[in-house]
């Protein structure tokens, strides 16, 4: 008598075996004490695991986790997507090239702009009052990113992966012992 495959028995114990395989396993275990015992054992183990599940708690509060996700999305949005070498937009490329040729040709025909032509003041680029040039965080498994500037006087350095603690006392203890 050939026995069913062990994974069939495991699937039957999980209640996931369907169709003719299920029928075959059930028919076989009625006549095979060894396989019946294996099935009972598998079900017993699953029942034990179900009864003694450890409660899963998040290391960080949900707000903190989602804020990290949002910051990572914002960071990636600032990185330009790679352009494939074989561009599939020949029409747009041709349009841009044609526009460049027309502009260059017009400048060549019309000559340089006259100096006495009335010109408005060239708006100077508003200098940033706070610009982060380099940033890094030496703590393992952390990353520091400069978020895109929205105001010229505020720069934001987003540090993700720092240990989360329950209160200030724990924070001071954890960070006091943290190597970087």
């Amino acid at each position: 008598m050939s026995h069913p495959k062990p994974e069939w028995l495991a699937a039957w114990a999980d209640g996931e075996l369907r169709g003719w395989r299920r029928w075959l396993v059930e028919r076989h275990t009625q006549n095979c004490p060894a396989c019946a015992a294996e099935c009972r054992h598998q079900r017993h183990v699953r029942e034990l695991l179900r009864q003694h599940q450890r409660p899963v708690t998040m290391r960080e509060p949900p707000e903190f986790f989602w804020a990290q996700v949002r910051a990572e999305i914002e960071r990636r949005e600032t990185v330009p997507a790679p352009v494939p070498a074989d561009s599939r937009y020949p029409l747009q490329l041709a349009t841009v090239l044609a526009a460049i040729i027309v502009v260059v040709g017009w400048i060549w025909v019309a000559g340089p702009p006259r100096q006495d032509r009335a010109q408005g003041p060239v708006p100077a680029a508003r200098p940033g009052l706070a610009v982060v040039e380099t940033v890094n965080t030496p703590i393992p498994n952390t990353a520091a990113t400069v978020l895109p500037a929205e105001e010229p006087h505020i720069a934001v350095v987003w540090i993700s992966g720092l240990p989360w603690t329950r209160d200030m006392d724990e924070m001071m203890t954890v960070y006091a012992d943290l190597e970087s």
Partner: protein
Amino acid sequence: MRALILILLAGLLAVAADAATVQCRLIRATNTSNGTDPQLQNIATQLEKRFGYKYYRQLGAGKGTLPAKDKMLRLDVGEGFTAFITPKGEGDLMVELYSGRAAVAKLTVKLKPGGHVLAGPIGVGQDWLILDLTLRE
């Protein structure tokens, strides 16, 4: 003699007035407080926009006169946080932010009076801690 002393005093005052002041503040972002600190009102809108919390409380601050180039200034911000600031040139600062022994971030910034560099967040309970570095004339 009196005139000489007065001239020296005036010179010293002029130098002191010209030196910029650098400040590092430790801010707690929370939704369970009773309003934002009045001393943070000038950046409260930007803080809320960036970090999403309703209220911001100042937990501590360290302030000092910006030293000469390549001289380090240490600011004790409170709650175990320390900022080390070293000027590297015109408006260029090397900044190291520490919590205990851990260097939370090391950055080089171009900071002019009125500018803010916000660094964080550090999750504590349901709140965040944010460090704010700013320069004033």
